[in-house]
């Protein structure tokens, strides 16, 4: 998932970003409300983020105000509040302002990952944790993939590419869209990175899994969509 991380604390922000990247997410990290507003609320590409991890106490304003502004602008991006404010009243205010989830620091990275998966599931309208496409089954929580019941070992980045394609079966995703799903702002991207991951996935899952639409991008092959 492409995530926006809003966290003013330098070290916690770095740790959360590293942890989220370990889970295969592309993370953009901003450290104040103004930057968050620019990246998320005021952005023309409002749908660039699949979820926002939001701290409430920001140096130039409240994360809650930012969230309210986003909801007023009808931005539906799922928001998970991650804050040190642990009072019940704060949690209620956060959820009522439009947050989808609320976590109190200290935050366990595994729990954060699970909650983000839950948010992702709800956004996709699924109730089970595994995604099945044809005879391919993806378990984002266990980070495991099986084809025809046989486990397939994939890296976090490869899984991210597969998930991005699996979330919109039948749709063609461009190189740019896949890069967005894979990389945060400051990460160096090798020009053929996406091709490499697609190549690895084909080798591991079978060449028929991903189709190349020349000049457009990639999509999951129609053939595997029904077993």
């Amino acid at each position, binding site marked *: 998932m492409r995530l926006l991380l809003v966290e*003013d*604390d*330098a*070290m*916690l922000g*770095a*740790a*959360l970003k*590293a*942890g989220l990247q*370990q889970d295969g997410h592309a993370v953009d990290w901003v*450290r*104040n409300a*103004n930057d968050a507003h620019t990246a998320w609320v005021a952005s023309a590409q409002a749908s660039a983020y699949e979820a926002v991890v939001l701290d409430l*106490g*920001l*140096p*130039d304003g409240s994360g809650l105000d930012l969230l309210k502004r986003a909801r007023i602008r009808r931005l539906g991006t799922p928001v998970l509040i991650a*804050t*040190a*404010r642990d009072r019940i009243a704060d949690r209620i205010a956060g959820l009522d302002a439009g947050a989808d989830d609320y976590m109190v*620091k*200290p*935050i*366990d*990275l*595994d729990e954060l990952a699970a909650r983000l998966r839950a948010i992702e599931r709800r956004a996709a309208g699924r109730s089970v944790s595994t995604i099945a496409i044809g005879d391919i089954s993806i378990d984002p929580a266990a980070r495991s993939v099986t084809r025809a019941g046989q486990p397939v070992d994939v890296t976090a980045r490869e899984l991210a590419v597969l998930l991005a394609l699996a979330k919109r079966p039948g749709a063609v995703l461009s190189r740019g869209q896949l890069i967005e799903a894979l990389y945060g702002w400051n990460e160096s991207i090798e020009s053929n990175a996406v091709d490499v991951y697609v190549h690895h996935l084909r080798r591991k899952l079978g060449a028929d899994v991903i189709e190349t639409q020349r000049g457009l991008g990639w999509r999951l092959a129609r053939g595997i969509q029904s077993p």
Partner: protein
Amino acid sequence: MTHAAWSLRNRLIALLATLAFVGWGTSSVWLYRSAYQEASELFDAALIETAHAVFAIIAHEALAEDEHVELEAVDHAHAERLFYQVRNGRGALVALSPGAPNEPLADANAHGFTEQVADGARYRVYTLREPSGRAAIHVGQPLAEREQLARKMALRLLLPGVVLVVLLAAGVWIIVRRVTSPLIAFSTAIDARAPSDTGAVHVERLPAELLPVGQAVNRLLGRVESALMHERTLTADAAHELRTPLAALRAQAQVALRARRDDERNTALRELIGGVDRATHLVETVLMLARLDAREVDRSALPAVALDRLVANVVDEVQAATAVRELRVEVDVPPLALRADAEALRVALRNLCENASQHAATRFRIEARADSDAVVIAVRDDGPGMTPAEQERAFDRFYRGSAGGAGTGLGLALVKRAAEMHAGDVRIGAGLDGRGVGVELVLPRGVAMPKTKGD
């Protein structure tokens, strides 16, 4: 309060009631005396009248026969008892009214009004003399009875006054209670408030005299409210500030634990160590602030601190940071001694220099000057400076500027506390080269004294 509070209402009632009572008393005395005098004049008139009547009826007979005659008592309209005696030309008592004393009511040659003791009782007597001197009539009234009657008549006149004064007192009580009821209601309303209730008091129905008080109370409540808010925000901020580094440590440790590659793990562990250092620095700063907060300074007992030497030490301490950034440090501090808490002053200067070495572009300057009122110690840099909004909050605890700086957010709060300890002030002033920030620490001149070394 050690003394019992006096009541406006009770005092007003007491004063007005006293006034009514004194007025009533004064008028009563005057009324009583004039009534008494009036009665006395009436009695005297009755004595004269009776004397003439007796003279007309019996004088001739008594003179002619020279006998002792019993006479009828004379009834008078006022029911007072009058007695009379008749003397003949030789001075002998020839006639007495019933009950009249046997001793003469007046001297033989008396004339007009006299007073005389006869048979043990005192009498007011009128003597009427026959022009030829052959007879005299004494008409007497017992003084005791006369006074009793006069008093009774006068007292009867005072009765309406008593009723009046009672009505007046009741009126005073009712009016004072009614007039002071808004005051009582106001104080009851304030008294009945919950301790945490800092909402405004209703002042719409207060009288004009009380309105300023109500408004002042509301202004005070407003200030209390904002102080409370500040306190709550500070507590929430402190919780946030202390929790966040711990949360960061935990997250960074977890990143290291989840790392699959060595370089990933090593990066996370290095971050973790940096985080521990930073958390340690924060805890030390918080403890320092708490220590300065708790410290009461007796300014007259402070030791002399050589400011120039202190500044030199501080510059040495931040040398590593300034060297890395290749900053030029300018020191313009004359030899000067201050009466100061050395630790507080050192911490303040060190924080100012640390801030400057973080934010300066090429250089910063530490300067001090003393004038007749104060010593001003300033640290100025040529960094990006502060916006007016940032300047306003610069000394707030845990405020790091709108971009969220890397520090603890407590440095300038420490400087402010150090200034407060010395009854001084701290303010944001000009930086260098038309940009940057200058933080000016102002210590009152009373704290400073000329340096004696080398004189």
